[in-house]
């Protein structure tokens, strides 16, 4: 029986380095990582059968619902190897699976010596997995290629074994075959983790250096910080110090996750676990930072610490203006657990008071919005997302623009925008389609490689702004969902950009202003004026809708004055009904936003700012709810 009863397993702080294996699982959403993790918890018997639930490690509702992991976790699994019959401690570090969280992924990888590359053998490797695989290889991790879901009828293990072998330079027969669902091959995988992944190196007697690879806010315990001890050790009585800030903290608790938190006497070199210091905000315990001890501090930090830098900005406004304080409270609360989220108050003539928020990327933005709405019961309008521009005005002054309203009037010397290197993986039949899309989005082809006979990797540089707009949705729909995308920032580049304003009866509506490429200004102008013409109800006077660059009108629509607004019949039985309708309409009028003399329904703002993908999503949701 390879599982070891927990009490008899090697204990934290007393586990020898050569008994430890630290690994992570690299996989795409849907490729079965959480199911495999569940299976490992079961086989190593750290979770009793009766306590098992699906996706045990995914804590947030959103994670479980969307099948993605936003925050990583580390679980200590005792295991007796079937190969040498020795006792080992496996620390499984779960990594976030999305491009927005690449930095967090890289820190998780830095806490491991090896990675299980998990690929659904009915689908093959996806672009984000590939990106994370490259990241793991850069970190010199030992890669164990594993084909999952071999129980599926559509499984093609031979085909994808070849693909994996080619990517990591091994033989196709080196790929393990498992089924997280049935458990087939999972014991063998655990044994191979022991056999192939090296034990952690590190100096047990050096000053303590522990890498923070995750930091989570817990409303009862404050911030729980996940660490990997690289050198030295942490004990429960230590005073610790954050290397980046020099701030000292009392250690309230140290322990391991197995898979519920268990306090321990300490963590030895090479071990993975958590510390609790009583800090209330994850920004005081940042991912990537080095923890050392106050009494014997290290002089050199672990490499790779970065401040998370928001890439995408959007305004978030409460649908009901009275909810502004509630939104502030909700953001403050969310920030305790999300060091990457930044925000500052913003006021919009059209949308009232809200916050300009910075995100790591689109998924991060979506998750934040969803959590705000769900956890604080808020209804929000978000403005179209934009990237950060560096604008140099006529006097040579550089202005950082995170909001179209900050875009300077007058002469502009140059505008620089962030550029990314994008990788698209797709079946070869879509090469033409993908190139066309990238070309439309101002992409520059970098290269293309065949991963196998019928799958290609296409690399482009693209302005981030284009990706932020609706690139991913377009890519998915034009390739019938087969293409996958990954991107990483590669700096800034000058571009011919302009700010397009939208005017209602001559009044600028700030929420609709956008910074776009000159060639697309006209298209944006006609799209927006056309949308608004449909969305704004006719009023007693004609309403001109214009799109303008500075003082130059580039598109124009108009809403004709209303001529008929009366119900023809009003007899005895109609009177009550009609009075009640009038009262209801009076209430509705209160929810109108006034732009000059023009009444704009709240829904018009929401609909005008929504992308086609949002609309599809809303439709799908409505359908689900019947």
């Amino acid at each position, binding site marked *: 029986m390879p599982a070891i009863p927990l009490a008899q397993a090697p204990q934290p702080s007393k586990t020898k380095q050569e008994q430890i294996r630290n690994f992570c699982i690299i996989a795409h959403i849907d490729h079965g990582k959480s199911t495999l993790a569940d299976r490992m918890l079961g086989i190593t018997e750290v979770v009793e059968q009766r306590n098992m639930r699906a996706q045990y490690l995914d804590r947030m509702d959103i994670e479980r619902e969307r099948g993605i992991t936003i925050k990583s976790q580390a679980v200590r699994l005792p295991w007796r190897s079937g190969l040498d019959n020795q006792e080992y401690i496996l620390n499984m570090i779960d990594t976030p699976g999305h491009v927005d969280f690449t930095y967090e992924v890289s820190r998780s990888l830095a806490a491991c010596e090896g990675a299980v590359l998990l690929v659904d053998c009915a689908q093959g490797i996806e672009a984000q997995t590939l990106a994370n695989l490259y990241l793991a290889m850069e970190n010199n991790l030992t890669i164990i290629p594993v084909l999952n879901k071999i129980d599926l009828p559509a499984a093609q293990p031979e085909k994808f074994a070849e693909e994996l072998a080619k990517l990591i330079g091994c033989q196709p027969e080196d790929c393990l075959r498992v089924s997280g669902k049935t458990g087939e091959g999972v014991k063998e995988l655990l044994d191979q983790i022991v056999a192939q992944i090296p034990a952690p190196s590190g100096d047990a007697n050096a000053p303590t250096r522990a890498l923070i690879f995750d930091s989570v806010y817990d409303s009862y315990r404050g911030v729980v910080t996940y660490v990997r001890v690289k050198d030295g050790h942490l004990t429960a009585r230590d005073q610790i110090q954050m290397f980046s800030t020099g701030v000292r903290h009392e250690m309230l608790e140290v322990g391991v996750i197995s898979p519920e938190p268990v306090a321990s006497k300490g963590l030895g070199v090479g071990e993975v676990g958590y510390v609790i210091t009583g800090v209330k905000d994850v920004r005081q315990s940042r991912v990537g930072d080095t923890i050392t001890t106050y009494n014997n501090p290290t002089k050199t930090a672990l490499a790779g610490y970065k401040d998370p830098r928001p890439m995408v900005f959007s305004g978030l406004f409460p649908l009901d203006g009275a909810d502004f304080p509630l939104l502030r409270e909700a953001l403050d609360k969310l920030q305790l657990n999300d060091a990457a989220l930044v925000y500052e108050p913003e006021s919009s003539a059209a949308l009232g008071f809200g916050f300009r928020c910075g995100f790591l990327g689109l998924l991060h933005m979506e998750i934040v919005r969803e959590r705000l709405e769900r956890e604080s019961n808020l209804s929000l309008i978000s403005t179209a997302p934009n990237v950060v521009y560096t604008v140099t005005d006529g006097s040579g002054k550089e202005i950082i623009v995170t909001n179209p309203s900050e875009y300077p009037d007058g002469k502009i010397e140059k505008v620089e925008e962030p550029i990314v290197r994008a990788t698209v993986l797709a079946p070869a039949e879509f090469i033409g389609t993908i190139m066309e899309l990238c070309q439309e989005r101002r992409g520059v082809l970098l290269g293309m490689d065949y991963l196998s006979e019928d799958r290609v990797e296409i690399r482009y540089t693209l302005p981030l702004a284009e990706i932020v707009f609706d690139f991913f949705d377009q890519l998915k729909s034009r390739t019938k969902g087969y293409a996958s995308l990954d991107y990483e920032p590669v700096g800034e580049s000058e571009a011919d950009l302009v700010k397009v304003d939208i005017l209602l009866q001559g009044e600028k509506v700030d929420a609709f202003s956008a910074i776009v490429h000159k060639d697309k200004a006209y298209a944006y102008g006609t799209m927006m004026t056309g949308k608004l013409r449909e969305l704004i109800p006719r009023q*007693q006077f004609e309403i001109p809708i214009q799109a303008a660059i500075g003082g130059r009108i580039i598109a124009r629509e108009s809403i*004709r004055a*209303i*001529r*008929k*607004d*009366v*119900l*023809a*019949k*009003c*007899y*005895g*039985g109609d*009177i*009550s009904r*009609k*009075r009640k309708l*009038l*009262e209801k*309409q*009076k209430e509705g*009028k209160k929810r109108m936003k006034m732009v000059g003399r023009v009444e704009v329904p709240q829904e018009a703002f929401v609909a005008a700012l929504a992308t086609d993908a949002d609309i599809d999503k809303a439709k799908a949701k409505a359908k689900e709810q019947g």
Partner: protein
Amino acid sequence: MNNELAFYVHIPYCARRCGYCDFNTYTPSELSISSDLSGVSRNYIDLVIAEISSARKVSKADVVPTIFFGGGTPTLMEPKDLGRVIAAIKNNFDLAPNAEITTEANPDTVNKSKLAELREVGINRISFGMQSAVPHVLASLDRTHNPANVAQSVKDARAAGFDEVSVDLIYGTPGESMSDWQESIDTALSLPISHISAYALIVEQGTKLGAQVKRGEVVMPDDDETADKYLLADEKFKAAGLDWYELSNWSKPGSESKHNLAYWNGANWWGAGPGAHSHIDGKRWWNVKHPTAYKEKISSGQSPMHDQEELTLEEKSSERIMLEIRLARGIDSKTLTAEQISTLEGFKNQGHLLEDSWSSGRIVLSTSGRLIADRIVREILS
């Protein structure tokens, strides 16, 4: 005025249901009864008469100035049964000597002898559901009558001694062109009538037409075109000597519907029959909707009332503005607040109110104003 009580009598039966209609009416097949309604007529009218007797106990009024048989299709009832209703009202109240007693009529359900009988039992005003003179428009409306029947019925009604004859028209039906509408107007005006009601078609949820529009099978005409049709009608009717006295009603001088004016003037009325609404001194109530439920209530000696509301002062004032603005007489500006007057001044300056009336202290809509009456009401009430 509070000494008066108008009566509306609802006849909740139709031979078949028209595609646009959401009135509280039932066909023999919906009620699972034989298509011969003669037996129904007697039994149903007994119930109505019972309700009228109970009205006597509730209302302090003495005089009944008007009676209106609406539906449904009142002419599906036996004329002698309608006569029994009139008699019951006479027994319980004083029927005014010059009382206006109207029935709605479907051109398909009357002939010379029936019209003579209706006149005989005391009905002195008749309103025909003409809707359109154009066959394809009638087909879109799902109406079954032959347009030629209308002309014949109107003439027969005059011959039977009806001095007050009205026709109802509907405009804005899907597929109706401007010239179709013109043809309907001209045809109506060629008849010996004293009153016209013309309504823009309203698509109601739950009707066949509503479903067709929702499914995209039928496209409703543009509001601007419907507005143009209203203007055309108003112009033609006026030229023929029929003046507007309410948004959707035109008549020769003195031929206004007194019964309908009672609604708009906030008078007291009693609606008898299933689903019928009543109003007495700021209290409104309405009866249970289904004929079977109505029968059960009346037969067991209970009130057929389903629900009621007592209007607040503010609601009373809103209703008065909402109703009076529809009338050619308009609103007395002394009854409005300074703020309401100032809102109205904006509409006057845009040409939606008549200047002359404004100077003499009355708020009266111009033709363009009539077309946006609901909007004007919303603005002055908010």
